Protein backbone atom coordinates (compact mmCIF):
# COMPACT_ATOMS: atom_id res chain seq x y z
CA UNK A 1 0.00 0.00 0.00
CA UNK A 2 2.59 2.50 1.03
CA UNK A 3 4.40 1.22 -2.02
CA UNK A 4 1.42 1.86 -4.20
CA UNK A 5 0.64 5.30 -2.93
CA UNK A 6 4.18 6.54 -2.72
CA UNK A 7 4.30 10.23 -2.21
CA UNK A 8 5.09 10.76 -5.86
CA UNK A 9 1.82 9.17 -6.92
CA UNK A 10 -0.41 11.11 -4.58
CA UNK A 11 1.43 14.34 -5.31
CA UNK A 12 1.19 13.77 -8.99
CA UNK A 13 -2.51 12.95 -8.66
CA UNK A 14 -3.13 16.22 -6.86
CA UNK A 15 -0.97 18.31 -9.16
CA UNK A 16 -0.73 16.63 -12.53
CA UNK A 17 1.76 18.11 -14.97
CA UNK A 18 0.14 17.16 -18.25
CA UNK A 19 -3.53 17.52 -17.60
CA UNK A 20 -5.34 19.55 -20.20
CA UNK A 21 -6.80 19.58 -23.67
CA UNK A 22 -4.69 20.79 -26.58
CA UNK A 23 -6.40 22.85 -29.22
CA UNK A 24 -5.66 22.48 -32.06
CA UNK A 25 -4.40 18.91 -31.95
CA UNK A 26 -3.32 16.28 -34.44
CA UNK A 27 -4.45 13.28 -32.48
CA UNK A 28 -7.43 12.80 -30.19
CA UNK A 29 -8.76 9.64 -28.58
CA UNK A 30 -10.82 8.77 -25.53
CA UNK A 31 -12.07 5.68 -23.81
CA UNK A 32 -13.26 4.55 -20.46
CA UNK A 33 -13.37 1.62 -18.10
CA UNK A 34 -17.06 1.14 -17.51
CA UNK A 35 -16.48 -0.96 -14.43
CA UNK A 36 -15.11 1.88 -12.37
CA UNK A 37 -15.98 4.91 -14.44
CA UNK A 38 -12.39 5.82 -15.19
CA UNK A 39 -12.27 8.05 -18.25
CA UNK A 40 -9.21 9.23 -20.19
CA UNK A 41 -8.87 11.40 -23.26
CA UNK A 42 -5.61 12.42 -24.82
CA UNK A 43 -4.66 15.14 -27.29
CA UNK A 44 -1.33 15.28 -29.09
CA UNK A 45 0.31 17.92 -31.25
CA UNK A 46 2.98 16.79 -33.70
CA UNK A 47 5.73 18.73 -35.35
CA UNK A 48 6.59 18.54 -39.08
CA UNK A 49 8.92 15.58 -38.55
CA UNK A 50 6.28 13.52 -36.79
CA UNK A 51 7.59 14.06 -33.29
CA UNK A 52 5.29 14.74 -30.37
CA UNK A 53 5.48 18.47 -29.76
CA UNK A 54 2.97 18.45 -26.93
CA UNK A 55 0.80 15.86 -25.18
CA UNK A 56 -1.99 16.20 -22.65
CA UNK A 57 -4.59 14.03 -20.99
CA UNK A 58 -7.86 14.79 -19.35
CA UNK A 59 -10.34 12.63 -17.53
CA UNK A 60 -11.39 11.34 -14.18
CA UNK A 61 -10.94 8.26 -12.16
CA UNK A 62 -8.70 6.69 -9.60
CA UNK A 63 -5.24 7.94 -8.79
CA UNK A 64 -3.60 5.06 -10.60
CA UNK A 65 -5.38 5.74 -13.88
CA UNK A 66 -4.82 9.48 -13.73
CA UNK A 67 -1.20 9.37 -12.67
CA UNK A 68 -0.41 6.68 -15.22
CA UNK A 69 -1.82 8.96 -17.90
CA UNK A 70 0.17 11.92 -16.62
CA UNK A 71 3.42 9.94 -16.56
CA UNK A 72 2.70 8.52 -19.98
CA UNK A 73 2.16 11.98 -21.46
CA UNK A 74 5.40 13.13 -19.92
CA UNK A 75 7.32 10.19 -21.34
CA UNK A 76 6.34 10.79 -24.94
CA UNK A 77 7.19 14.47 -25.13
CA UNK A 78 9.48 15.02 -28.06
CA UNK A 79 9.41 11.38 -29.14
CA UNK A 80 8.90 10.31 -32.76
CA UNK A 81 5.54 8.64 -33.35
CA UNK A 82 7.25 5.37 -34.24
CA UNK A 83 8.72 5.23 -30.81
CA UNK A 84 5.34 5.99 -29.26
CA UNK A 85 3.82 3.16 -31.24
CA UNK A 86 6.51 0.82 -29.99
CA UNK A 87 5.79 1.56 -26.33
CA UNK A 88 4.90 -1.52 -24.31
CA UNK A 89 2.77 -2.04 -21.25
CA UNK A 90 5.93 -2.82 -19.39
CA UNK A 91 7.29 0.65 -20.20
CA UNK A 92 4.28 2.24 -18.60
CA UNK A 93 4.41 0.01 -15.54
CA UNK A 94 8.06 0.89 -15.15
CA UNK A 95 7.15 4.57 -15.13
CA UNK A 96 4.66 3.91 -12.36
CA UNK A 97 7.20 1.82 -10.54
CA UNK A 98 4.67 -0.16 -8.54
CA UNK A 99 3.28 -3.69 -8.47
CA UNK A 100 -0.34 -3.97 -9.51
CA UNK A 101 -2.93 -6.70 -9.25
CA UNK A 102 -5.10 -7.56 -12.25
CA UNK A 103 -7.91 -5.14 -11.42
CA UNK A 104 -5.67 -2.14 -10.90
CA UNK A 105 -3.66 -3.08 -13.95
CA UNK A 106 -6.73 -2.21 -16.00
CA UNK A 107 -6.78 1.21 -14.35
CA UNK A 108 -3.11 1.74 -15.08
CA UNK A 109 -3.35 0.64 -18.66
CA UNK A 110 -6.36 2.69 -19.68
CA UNK A 111 -4.25 5.62 -20.83
CA UNK A 112 -1.93 3.25 -22.61
CA UNK A 113 -4.87 1.77 -24.54
CA UNK A 114 -6.13 5.25 -25.38
CA UNK A 115 -2.72 6.41 -26.56
CA UNK A 116 -2.22 3.33 -28.70
CA UNK A 117 -5.64 3.67 -30.29
CA UNK A 118 -4.88 7.33 -30.93
CA UNK A 119 -1.54 6.85 -32.60
CA UNK A 120 -2.71 3.92 -34.66
CA UNK A 121 -5.92 5.71 -35.51
CA UNK A 122 -3.83 8.47 -37.07
CA UNK A 123 -2.33 5.87 -39.37
CA UNK A 124 -5.76 5.15 -40.68
CA UNK A 125 -6.61 8.76 -41.46
CA UNK A 126 -3.19 9.13 -43.11
CA UNK A 127 -3.78 6.07 -45.29
Amino acid at each position, binding site marked *: *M*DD*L*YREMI*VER*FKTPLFRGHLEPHDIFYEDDN*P*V*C*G*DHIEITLQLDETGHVRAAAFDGQ*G*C*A*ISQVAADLLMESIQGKPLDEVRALTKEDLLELLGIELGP*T*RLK*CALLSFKVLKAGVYGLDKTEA
Partner: protein
Amino acid sequence: MPNFTALREDFPTLAREVRPGVPLTYLDSTATAQKPRAVLEAMDAFYRRHNANIHRGIHTLAEEATAAYEGAREKIAAFINAPEAAQVIFTRNTTESINLVAYTWARANLKAGDLIVLTEMEHHSNLVPWQMLAAERGVELAFIPVTAEGLLDMAAYARLLEREPKLVAFTHMSNVLGTINPAGEMIAAARAAGAITLLDAAQSVPHLPVDVQALEVDFLAFSAHKMLGPTGIGALYGRRDLLEAMPPFLGGGDMIKRVDLDGFRANDLPHKFEAGTPAIAEAVGFGAAVDYLRAVGMEAILAHEQELTAYALERLAAVPGVRIIGPRAEKRGGVIAFVLEGVHPHDVAQILDGEGVAVRAGHHCAQPLHLCFNLPATTRASFYLYNTRDDVERLVKALAKVKEIFG
Protein backbone atom coordinates in the same frame (compact mmCIF):
# COMPACT_ATOMS: atom_id res chain seq x y z
CA MET B 1 -27.99 -14.97 21.72
CA PRO B 2 -25.16 -16.95 20.11
CA ASN B 3 -21.61 -15.79 20.77
CA PHE B 4 -20.72 -14.24 17.44
CA THR B 5 -17.15 -13.48 18.44
CA ALA B 6 -16.54 -17.07 19.45
CA LEU B 7 -17.86 -18.49 16.20
CA ARG B 8 -15.14 -16.65 14.29
CA GLU B 9 -12.95 -19.57 15.33
CA ASP B 10 -14.95 -21.79 12.99
CA PHE B 11 -13.75 -19.84 9.94
CA PRO B 12 -10.13 -20.61 9.05
CA THR B 13 -9.77 -17.70 6.61
CA LEU B 14 -10.59 -15.14 9.27
CA ALA B 15 -7.42 -16.09 11.13
CA ARG B 16 -5.21 -15.30 8.20
CA GLU B 17 -2.84 -12.39 7.81
CA VAL B 18 -3.11 -10.54 4.53
CA ARG B 19 0.60 -9.98 4.74
CA PRO B 20 3.01 -10.47 7.63
CA GLY B 21 1.71 -8.57 10.61
CA VAL B 22 -1.49 -7.42 8.91
CA PRO B 23 -4.53 -9.49 9.96
CA LEU B 24 -7.50 -9.83 7.62
CA THR B 25 -10.64 -7.77 8.25
CA TYR B 26 -13.12 -9.37 5.89
CA LEU B 27 -15.89 -6.96 4.90
CA ASP B 28 -16.84 -8.47 1.55
CA SER B 29 -19.40 -11.14 2.42
CA THR B 30 -21.94 -9.69 0.05
CA ALA B 31 -19.62 -10.81 -2.75
CA THR B 32 -18.99 -14.18 -1.14
CA ALA B 33 -19.00 -15.51 2.40
CA GLN B 34 -16.19 -17.26 4.21
CA LYS B 35 -16.73 -20.95 4.97
CA PRO B 36 -16.84 -22.63 8.34
CA ARG B 37 -14.74 -25.73 8.90
CA ALA B 38 -17.93 -27.84 9.09
CA VAL B 39 -18.70 -27.09 5.43
CA LEU B 40 -15.19 -27.85 4.24
CA GLU B 41 -15.05 -31.04 6.26
CA ALA B 42 -18.40 -32.25 4.95
CA MET B 43 -17.19 -31.90 1.36
CA ASP B 44 -13.83 -33.41 2.10
CA ALA B 45 -15.39 -36.39 3.88
CA PHE B 46 -17.74 -36.87 0.96
CA TYR B 47 -14.86 -37.02 -1.51
CA ARG B 48 -12.74 -39.24 0.70
CA ARG B 49 -15.40 -41.82 1.49
CA HIS B 50 -18.57 -41.61 -0.54
CA ASN B 51 -17.62 -40.09 -3.86
CA ALA B 52 -19.68 -41.58 -6.69
CA ASN B 53 -22.04 -40.43 -9.36
CA ILE B 54 -25.64 -40.34 -8.20
CA HIS B 55 -29.02 -41.69 -9.31
CA ARG B 56 -29.56 -45.19 -10.61
CA GLY B 57 -26.35 -46.43 -9.11
CA ILE B 58 -26.70 -49.70 -7.29
CA HIS B 59 -23.32 -49.92 -5.60
CA THR B 60 -22.87 -48.73 -2.06
CA LEU B 61 -21.00 -45.52 -2.84
CA ALA B 62 -23.56 -44.50 -5.45
CA GLU B 63 -26.38 -45.05 -2.97
CA GLU B 64 -24.57 -43.13 -0.27
CA ALA B 65 -23.83 -40.29 -2.67
CA THR B 66 -27.44 -40.18 -3.83
CA ALA B 67 -28.67 -40.11 -0.25
CA ALA B 68 -26.22 -37.32 0.59
CA TYR B 69 -27.24 -35.27 -2.44
CA GLU B 70 -30.97 -35.71 -1.93
CA GLY B 71 -30.56 -35.22 1.81
CA ALA B 72 -28.96 -31.85 1.13
CA ARG B 73 -31.91 -30.91 -1.04
CA GLU B 74 -34.23 -31.70 1.85
CA LYS B 75 -32.24 -29.53 4.22
CA ILE B 76 -32.31 -26.61 1.85
CA ALA B 77 -36.01 -27.04 1.18
CA ALA B 78 -36.68 -27.04 4.92
CA PHE B 79 -34.49 -23.94 5.36
CA ILE B 80 -36.76 -21.88 3.10
CA ASN B 81 -39.86 -23.82 4.19
CA ALA B 82 -40.57 -25.24 0.75
CA PRO B 83 -43.55 -27.60 0.79
CA GLU B 84 -41.51 -30.30 -0.92
CA ALA B 85 -37.85 -31.00 -1.59
CA ALA B 86 -38.72 -31.66 -5.24
CA GLN B 87 -39.48 -27.96 -5.62
CA VAL B 88 -35.83 -27.08 -5.03
CA ILE B 89 -33.74 -27.31 -8.20
CA PHE B 90 -29.98 -27.20 -7.88
CA THR B 91 -28.31 -24.73 -10.24
CA ARG B 92 -24.84 -23.14 -10.35
CA ASN B 93 -25.85 -19.89 -8.69
CA THR B 94 -28.55 -17.24 -8.43
CA THR B 95 -27.72 -16.12 -11.94
CA GLU B 96 -28.41 -19.51 -13.46
CA SER B 97 -31.58 -19.87 -11.39
CA ILE B 98 -32.98 -16.66 -12.86
CA ASN B 99 -31.86 -17.54 -16.38
CA LEU B 100 -33.56 -20.92 -16.02
CA VAL B 101 -36.86 -19.15 -15.41
CA ALA B 102 -36.19 -16.74 -18.26
CA TYR B 103 -35.39 -19.55 -20.70
CA THR B 104 -38.24 -21.84 -19.71
CA TRP B 105 -41.21 -20.29 -17.95
CA ALA B 106 -40.83 -16.90 -19.58
CA ARG B 107 -40.18 -18.12 -23.10
CA ALA B 108 -43.14 -20.49 -22.83
CA ASN B 109 -45.51 -17.90 -21.38
CA LEU B 110 -44.57 -14.39 -22.52
CA LYS B 111 -45.06 -12.81 -25.89
CA ALA B 112 -44.33 -9.50 -27.55
CA GLY B 113 -45.90 -6.61 -25.70
CA ASP B 114 -46.13 -8.41 -22.36
CA LEU B 115 -44.78 -6.43 -19.45
CA ILE B 116 -42.14 -7.45 -16.92
CA VAL B 117 -41.68 -5.22 -13.89
CA LEU B 118 -38.21 -5.01 -12.37
CA THR B 119 -36.60 -2.37 -10.17
CA GLU B 120 -33.80 0.10 -10.65
CA MET B 121 -31.82 -1.56 -7.89
CA GLU B 122 -31.45 -4.97 -9.56
CA HIS B 123 -28.22 -6.84 -9.73
CA HIS B 124 -27.26 -7.52 -13.37
CA SER B 125 -28.31 -11.12 -12.76
CA ASN B 126 -31.91 -10.07 -12.47
CA LEU B 127 -31.72 -7.58 -15.29
CA VAL B 128 -29.66 -8.92 -18.19
CA PRO B 129 -31.67 -12.18 -18.60
CA TRP B 130 -34.79 -10.07 -19.04
CA GLN B 131 -33.04 -7.67 -21.39
CA MET B 132 -32.04 -10.66 -23.50
CA LEU B 133 -35.64 -11.82 -23.49
CA ALA B 134 -36.87 -8.34 -24.34
CA ALA B 135 -34.49 -8.12 -27.28
CA GLU B 136 -35.49 -11.57 -28.52
CA ARG B 137 -39.23 -11.43 -27.96
CA GLY B 138 -40.28 -7.84 -27.76
CA VAL B 139 -41.34 -8.19 -24.15
CA GLU B 140 -41.36 -4.82 -22.41
CA LEU B 141 -39.43 -4.03 -19.25
CA ALA B 142 -40.46 -1.39 -16.74
CA PHE B 143 -38.65 -0.41 -13.59
CA ILE B 144 -39.82 0.57 -10.14
CA PRO B 145 -37.78 3.71 -9.38
CA VAL B 146 -35.50 4.00 -6.39
CA THR B 147 -35.96 7.03 -4.17
CA ALA B 148 -33.11 9.25 -3.04
CA GLU B 149 -33.18 7.40 0.26
CA GLY B 150 -32.66 4.12 -1.55
CA LEU B 151 -36.16 2.68 -1.19
CA LEU B 152 -38.50 1.46 -3.88
CA ASP B 153 -41.17 3.96 -4.89
CA MET B 154 -44.30 2.08 -3.90
CA ALA B 155 -46.70 4.51 -5.51
CA ALA B 156 -44.92 4.02 -8.81
CA TYR B 157 -45.11 0.26 -8.27
CA ALA B 158 -48.87 0.47 -7.78
CA ARG B 159 -49.16 2.35 -11.07
CA LEU B 160 -47.04 -0.23 -12.87
CA LEU B 161 -49.27 -3.00 -11.57
CA GLU B 162 -52.25 -1.32 -13.19
CA ARG B 163 -50.58 -2.17 -16.49
CA GLU B 164 -51.04 -5.85 -15.61
CA PRO B 165 -47.50 -7.15 -15.86
CA LYS B 166 -47.02 -10.87 -16.44
CA LEU B 167 -43.99 -11.04 -14.17
CA VAL B 168 -42.69 -9.00 -11.26
CA ALA B 169 -39.06 -9.84 -10.46
CA PHE B 170 -37.11 -7.99 -7.82
CA THR B 171 -34.37 -8.28 -5.27
CA HIS B 172 -35.29 -9.08 -1.70
CA MET B 173 -32.29 -7.17 -0.46
CA SER B 174 -30.11 -4.82 -2.47
CA ASN B 175 -26.45 -5.77 -2.62
CA VAL B 176 -25.49 -2.09 -2.74
CA LEU B 177 -28.02 -0.10 -0.73
CA GLY B 178 -28.66 -2.84 1.77
CA THR B 179 -32.35 -2.05 1.41
CA ILE B 180 -34.62 -4.89 2.49
CA ASN B 181 -37.62 -4.62 0.24
CA PRO B 182 -41.13 -5.36 1.58
CA ALA B 183 -41.29 -8.60 -0.34
CA GLY B 184 -44.47 -10.03 1.19
CA GLU B 185 -46.44 -6.92 0.46
CA MET B 186 -45.04 -6.52 -3.03
CA ILE B 187 -45.72 -10.15 -3.91
CA ALA B 188 -49.29 -9.94 -2.64
CA ALA B 189 -49.86 -6.87 -4.77
CA ALA B 190 -48.33 -8.52 -7.80
CA ARG B 191 -50.47 -11.61 -7.32
CA ALA B 192 -53.56 -9.48 -6.98
CA ALA B 193 -52.63 -7.92 -10.32
CA GLY B 194 -52.28 -11.37 -11.87
CA ALA B 195 -48.50 -11.43 -12.13
CA ILE B 196 -46.09 -14.26 -11.44
CA THR B 197 -43.34 -13.27 -8.98
CA LEU B 198 -39.65 -14.00 -8.83
CA LEU B 199 -37.57 -12.99 -5.86
CA ASP B 200 -33.82 -12.58 -6.18
CA ALA B 201 -32.95 -13.86 -2.73
CA ALA B 202 -29.17 -13.94 -3.22
CA GLN B 203 -28.79 -11.50 -0.33
CA SER B 204 -31.81 -12.40 1.76
CA VAL B 205 -31.65 -16.16 2.24
CA PRO B 206 -28.13 -15.83 3.70
CA HIS B 207 -29.01 -13.02 6.08
CA LEU B 208 -32.60 -13.29 7.23
CA PRO B 209 -35.35 -15.85 7.72
CA VAL B 210 -37.05 -16.54 4.39
CA ASP B 211 -40.22 -18.60 4.17
CA VAL B 212 -41.47 -19.21 0.65
CA GLN B 213 -44.89 -20.27 1.84
CA ALA B 214 -45.36 -17.20 3.99
CA LEU B 215 -44.15 -15.02 1.13
CA GLU B 216 -46.32 -16.90 -1.36
CA VAL B 217 -43.63 -16.31 -3.92
CA ASP B 218 -43.61 -18.22 -7.21
CA PHE B 219 -39.87 -18.41 -7.83
CA LEU B 220 -36.96 -17.79 -5.48
CA ALA B 221 -33.28 -17.77 -6.48
CA PHE B 222 -30.20 -17.92 -4.27
CA SER B 223 -26.54 -19.04 -4.15
CA ALA B 224 -24.72 -21.29 -1.68
CA HIS B 225 -21.46 -19.33 -1.77
CA LYS B 226 -23.08 -16.29 -0.19
CA MET B 227 -24.43 -18.33 2.73
CA LEU B 228 -21.31 -20.12 3.98
CA GLY B 229 -21.54 -22.80 1.32
CA PRO B 230 -19.27 -23.67 -1.59
CA THR B 231 -19.04 -22.06 -4.99
CA GLY B 232 -20.55 -23.90 -7.93
CA ILE B 233 -24.04 -24.43 -6.52
CA GLY B 234 -27.20 -22.42 -6.10
CA ALA B 235 -30.89 -23.13 -5.98
CA LEU B 236 -34.16 -22.26 -7.60
CA TYR B 237 -37.35 -22.78 -5.67
CA GLY B 238 -40.53 -22.85 -7.73
CA ARG B 239 -44.23 -23.38 -7.34
CA ARG B 240 -44.97 -26.99 -8.23
CA ASP B 241 -47.59 -26.37 -10.90
CA LEU B 242 -45.37 -23.82 -12.62
CA LEU B 243 -42.33 -26.10 -12.56
CA GLU B 244 -44.36 -28.99 -13.91
CA ALA B 245 -45.77 -26.99 -16.78
CA MET B 246 -42.42 -25.50 -17.75
CA PRO B 247 -40.44 -27.03 -20.61
CA PRO B 248 -37.05 -28.41 -19.61
CA PHE B 249 -33.97 -26.16 -19.73
CA LEU B 250 -30.80 -28.13 -20.44
CA GLY B 251 -31.06 -31.52 -22.11
CA GLY B 252 -28.99 -34.54 -21.16
CA GLY B 253 -28.53 -37.31 -18.67
CA ASP B 254 -30.80 -37.53 -15.61
CA MET B 255 -33.40 -35.05 -16.86
CA ILE B 256 -35.06 -37.69 -18.97
CA LYS B 257 -37.33 -40.60 -18.29
CA ARG B 258 -36.88 -42.32 -21.59
CA VAL B 259 -34.99 -41.51 -24.77
CA ASP B 260 -34.92 -42.96 -28.23
CA LEU B 261 -33.46 -41.52 -31.39
CA ASP B 262 -36.70 -39.71 -32.15
CA GLY B 263 -37.21 -37.90 -28.88
CA PHE B 264 -37.32 -37.99 -25.13
CA ARG B 265 -39.75 -37.79 -22.24
CA ALA B 266 -38.74 -35.41 -19.46
CA ASN B 267 -38.19 -36.73 -15.96
CA ASP B 268 -40.16 -35.79 -12.84
CA LEU B 269 -39.26 -32.85 -10.64
CA PRO B 270 -36.65 -31.88 -9.63
CA HIS B 271 -34.56 -34.00 -12.02
CA LYS B 272 -36.25 -32.53 -15.09
CA PHE B 273 -34.18 -29.39 -14.56
CA GLU B 274 -30.90 -31.02 -13.53
CA ALA B 275 -29.20 -32.26 -16.66
CA GLY B 276 -25.90 -34.08 -16.41
CA THR B 277 -23.81 -34.79 -13.37
CA PRO B 278 -24.73 -32.14 -10.83
CA ALA B 279 -22.56 -30.42 -8.22
CA ILE B 280 -22.76 -33.37 -5.83
CA ALA B 281 -20.08 -32.56 -3.29
CA GLU B 282 -21.18 -28.94 -3.43
CA ALA B 283 -24.72 -29.95 -2.52
CA VAL B 284 -23.31 -31.74 0.50
CA GLY B 285 -21.43 -28.56 1.45
CA PHE B 286 -24.54 -26.49 0.85
CA GLY B 287 -26.46 -28.76 3.22
CA ALA B 288 -23.76 -28.38 5.86
CA ALA B 289 -23.89 -24.59 5.48
CA VAL B 290 -27.61 -24.62 6.08
CA ASP B 291 -27.09 -26.81 9.15
CA TYR B 292 -24.61 -24.27 10.46
CA LEU B 293 -26.91 -21.30 9.83
CA ARG B 294 -29.86 -23.07 11.43
CA ALA B 295 -27.83 -23.89 14.50
CA VAL B 296 -26.91 -20.23 14.95
CA GLY B 297 -30.42 -19.11 14.04
CA MET B 298 -31.45 -16.76 11.27
CA GLU B 299 -33.29 -14.39 13.58
CA ALA B 300 -30.17 -14.02 15.67
CA ILE B 301 -28.01 -13.51 12.60
CA LEU B 302 -30.28 -10.77 11.31
CA ALA B 303 -30.33 -9.05 14.71
CA HIS B 304 -26.55 -9.24 14.99
CA GLU B 305 -26.02 -7.78 11.53
CA GLN B 306 -28.54 -5.01 12.01
CA GLU B 307 -26.99 -4.03 15.32
CA LEU B 308 -23.57 -4.00 13.70
CA THR B 309 -24.84 -2.05 10.71
CA ALA B 310 -26.44 0.60 12.88
CA TYR B 311 -23.16 0.96 14.75
CA ALA B 312 -21.15 1.15 11.54
CA LEU B 313 -23.49 3.71 9.98
CA GLU B 314 -23.02 5.90 13.02
CA ARG B 315 -19.24 5.53 13.06
CA LEU B 316 -18.92 6.11 9.30
CA ALA B 317 -21.21 9.11 9.34
CA ALA B 318 -18.74 10.68 11.75
CA VAL B 319 -15.88 10.42 9.24
CA PRO B 320 -15.67 13.77 7.43
CA GLY B 321 -16.13 13.46 3.67
CA VAL B 322 -17.93 10.11 3.83
CA ARG B 323 -21.26 9.96 2.04
CA ILE B 324 -23.32 6.84 2.60
CA ILE B 325 -25.98 5.77 0.13
CA GLY B 326 -29.02 3.75 1.06
CA PRO B 327 -31.67 3.92 3.75
CA ARG B 328 -31.46 4.31 7.50
CA ALA B 329 -30.49 1.35 9.64
CA GLU B 330 -33.97 -0.11 10.29
CA LYS B 331 -34.64 -0.63 6.59
CA ARG B 332 -31.43 -2.33 5.67
CA GLY B 333 -29.24 -5.36 6.10
CA GLY B 334 -25.49 -5.44 6.60
CA VAL B 335 -24.33 -3.68 3.45
CA ILE B 336 -22.92 -0.16 3.39
CA ALA B 337 -21.87 1.50 0.15
CA PHE B 338 -20.23 4.89 0.42
CA VAL B 339 -18.01 7.41 -1.29
CA LEU B 340 -15.20 9.38 0.25
CA GLU B 341 -14.92 12.87 -1.10
CA GLY B 342 -12.01 13.42 -3.44
CA VAL B 343 -10.81 9.83 -3.47
CA HIS B 344 -11.86 7.30 -6.06
CA PRO B 345 -13.39 4.12 -4.59
CA HIS B 346 -10.61 2.07 -6.17
CA ASP B 347 -8.02 4.05 -4.30
CA VAL B 348 -10.03 3.74 -1.11
CA ALA B 349 -10.27 -0.02 -1.47
CA GLN B 350 -6.61 -0.32 -2.31
CA ILE B 351 -5.45 1.61 0.71
CA LEU B 352 -7.88 -0.27 2.94
CA ASP B 353 -6.41 -3.49 1.61
CA GLY B 354 -3.02 -2.25 2.69
CA GLU B 355 -4.46 -2.18 6.20
CA GLY B 356 -5.90 -5.68 5.79
CA VAL B 357 -9.46 -4.41 5.33
CA ALA B 358 -11.14 -6.24 2.44
CA VAL B 359 -13.95 -4.24 0.82
CA ARG B 360 -15.25 -4.02 -2.76
CA ALA B 361 -15.05 -1.00 -5.04
CA GLY B 362 -16.93 -0.61 -8.28
CA HIS B 363 -20.53 -0.82 -9.39
CA HIS B 364 -21.07 -4.18 -7.66
CA CYS B 365 -22.92 -5.54 -10.70
CA ALA B 366 -25.59 -2.88 -10.25
CA GLN B 367 -24.53 -0.34 -12.82
CA PRO B 368 -28.00 1.10 -13.48
CA LEU B 369 -28.43 1.78 -9.76
CA HIS B 370 -25.12 3.62 -9.70
CA LEU B 371 -26.27 5.64 -12.68
CA CYS B 372 -29.38 6.60 -10.68
CA PHE B 373 -27.19 7.96 -7.95
CA ASN B 374 -24.88 9.47 -10.55
CA LEU B 375 -21.92 7.61 -9.14
CA PRO B 376 -19.67 5.54 -11.37
CA ALA B 377 -18.54 3.51 -8.39
CA THR B 378 -18.78 3.15 -4.64
CA THR B 379 -16.80 1.46 -1.92
CA ARG B 380 -18.82 -1.24 -0.16
CA ALA B 381 -18.32 -2.78 3.24
CA SER B 382 -20.57 -5.70 4.12
CA PHE B 383 -21.10 -7.83 7.19
CA TYR B 384 -21.98 -11.36 8.08
CA LEU B 385 -22.45 -13.29 11.28
CA TYR B 386 -18.71 -13.45 11.93
CA ASN B 387 -18.11 -9.70 11.83
CA THR B 388 -17.79 -7.66 15.01
CA ARG B 389 -17.47 -4.08 16.18
CA ASP B 390 -13.71 -4.54 16.03
CA ASP B 391 -14.02 -4.94 12.28
CA VAL B 392 -15.92 -1.66 12.10
CA GLU B 393 -13.21 0.05 14.12
CA ARG B 394 -10.53 -1.27 11.80
CA LEU B 395 -12.49 0.03 8.82
CA VAL B 396 -12.82 3.48 10.37
CA LYS B 397 -9.16 3.56 11.27
CA ALA B 398 -8.15 2.52 7.78
CA LEU B 399 -10.33 5.26 6.32
CA ALA B 400 -8.39 7.73 8.41
CA LYS B 401 -5.27 6.43 6.73
CA VAL B 402 -6.85 7.05 3.31
CA LYS B 403 -7.55 10.61 4.28
CA GLU B 404 -4.05 11.00 5.58
CA ILE B 405 -2.55 9.79 2.32
CA PHE B 406 -4.84 11.81 0.10
CA GLY B 407 -4.66 14.62 2.64
